[in-house]
């Protein structure tokens, strides 16, 4: 009842007033989304005791970069960071190549067996072998504890492939493909000379989606890479953020006993959140307009 009353009041309001109300609502929502991140950022450059005493709601207190120094002095974090970069670079290249190699043939209308092949891939979006059978196949193919386990088993991203296939079908001008065929270009030549250059926007989206997925992935490593030397950054952070345990190298950095160590552990929590989240937060705004279009192309035909 409250709602209809409110709507009745607003009906009488002018355009300007409803603009102001909208902007205020949007600002509140932006605050709710951004403040948790801002708070961790502030906390990461403050004294942890001040953070826990509630002195850092808006501005840092006793500005310090010790948390970041500790993060970059911690061997396990550095190893994790480098591992994550490695998995992200190799995995992204691998995934995008796989997506392109499968999306293009499936976008060619007259390809015999096209429908069968599409269904062949799409079924895997809805049904799977589940955790253990997949684990056993990965084990039997010798991928356990090798970096290949990070991308080969999940290498063909079907939902992304469909987005790209739809893009090829609807957004690459048909006349250009037909012209190439008339000139006697093979399918491969058409793919390399026309499809790839004309689909840079969707490729940018796929690169970003893959990068984000690999950078943030930890579960694959948890199952398939039991050796700690392979652990990606998020998995290293699990010990710090979730289990709240100080690593051996952290303990070695401290001379001042338990209190100093626990203070450092808290600082590392805040700064490692920022270190892990920042790279992707910097990248995604650059391709925002592309993925907004790309997501749509994959969902519903216009």
């Amino acid at each position: 009842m409250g709602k209809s009353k409110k709507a009745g009041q607003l009906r009488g309001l002018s355009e300007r007033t409803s603009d102001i109300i909208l902007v205020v609502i949007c600002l509140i929502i932006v605050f709710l989304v951004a403040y948790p991140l801002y708070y961790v950022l502030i906390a990461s450059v403050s004294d942890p005791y001040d953070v826990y005493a509630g002195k850092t709601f808006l501005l840092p207190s006793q500005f310090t970069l010790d948390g970041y120094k500790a993060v970059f002095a911690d061997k396990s974090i550095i190893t994790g960071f480098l591992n994550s970069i490695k998995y992200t670079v190799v995995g992204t290249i691998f995934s995008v190549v796989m997506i392109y190699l499968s999306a293009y043939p499936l976008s060619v209308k007259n390809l015999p067996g096209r429908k069968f092949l599409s269904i062949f891939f799409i079924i895997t979006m809805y049904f799977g072998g589940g955790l253990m059978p997949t684990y056993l196949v990965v084990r039997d193919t010798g991928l356990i504890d090798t970096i290949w386990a990070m991308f080969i088993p999940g290498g063909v991203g079907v939902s992304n492939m469909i987005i790209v296939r739809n893009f090829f079908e609807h957004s690459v001008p048909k006349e250009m493909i037909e012209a190439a065929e008339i000139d006697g270009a093979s399918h491969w030549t058409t793919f390399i000379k026309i499809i790839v250059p004309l689909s840079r926007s969707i490729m940018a989206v796929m690169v970003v989606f893959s990068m984000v997925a690999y950078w943030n992935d930890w579960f694959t490593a948890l199952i398939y890479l039991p050796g700690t030397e392979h652990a990606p950054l998020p998995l290293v952070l699990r010990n710090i953020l979730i289990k709240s345990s100080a690593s051996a190298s952290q303990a070695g950095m401290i001379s001042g006993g338990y209190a100093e160590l626990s203070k450092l552990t808290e600082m590392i929590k805040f700064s490692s959140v920022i270190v892990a989240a920042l790279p992707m937060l910097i990248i995604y705004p650059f391709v925002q307009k592309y993925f907004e279009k790309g997501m749509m192309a994959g969902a519903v035909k216009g």
Partner: protein
Amino acid sequence: MDNLKNSPPAVAVKEKSVWQRMASYWQLYLMLLIPVALTIIYKYIPMYGIQIAFRDFKSLRGMWGSEWAGLKWFQRFFSSPNCVRMIKNTVLLSFYSLLWSFPIPIILSLALNQLRFNKFKRTVQTILYAPHFISIMVVCGMLRIFLSPSGGLINLIAGTGIDFLSEAAAFRTIYIASGIWQDAGWGIIVYMASLANIDTAHYEAAKIDGASMFQRIRYIDLPELVPQIVLMLIMSAGNLMNVGFEKVFLLQTDLNKATSDVIAVYVYQQGIEHAKYSYSTAVGLFNTVVNVILLIMVNKITSKISEDVSFV
């Protein structure tokens, strides 16, 4: 399926057999070779390997050589003390999550669409997308920081000292609220794209007729979104048994298990941690079967609408 119906007869030259036609596309098949091979090895062979749910898996004898065990593992699961609790927690967590998270992107996109200041609108959208790009591990780490009983943000604001992650009653709220924080902004993309299709002439006409903002949303925007809303609802309903495993796994504590004990985490613990391969597979299969039944039911109910969907 209806391959024959759709194949264009005009293109097919009479003399060419199917094999000759396929041969002319050899490069495309070659391109598909690796993706198809990987899909067979890592998707289809595991599907075939589900049979270990009905076998007594022994590492030495492998997936195909272990002895048959009938429904032993399913019986064990259904007679385990926490079986009902896990099924209930899985269903309720997904259902409440859908109930709360589903409408928010719709409301957000309707509101954002009314904003007339384009630059402001773009900035708001960019900020709303941000949490989607953060690892669940990091989100759970932030949650632990905010929910800490000693000096966590929530306790500082409320002036209390509650250990939220030890409270079974708080678990669902934490799970759902953080899910909304992370993905509601991302969810607006599809709706914003539909709204962008609306002809601005409709708004002009509505303004001349003296329609308020709410009337414009109600009579112009909302009808435009209905197909998309139904589609998203189908897709979410078909995923009802797939709770976000990662987050539950990372936020589960011994004390909140009354509400956080879900099938997916159990499958992981039994399989990877305790190496009970067959048992874990059986429990996972039960979860999948329930999900597939839901998916088929939802699809049947809405088969008319799904004609617009271009998955195949």
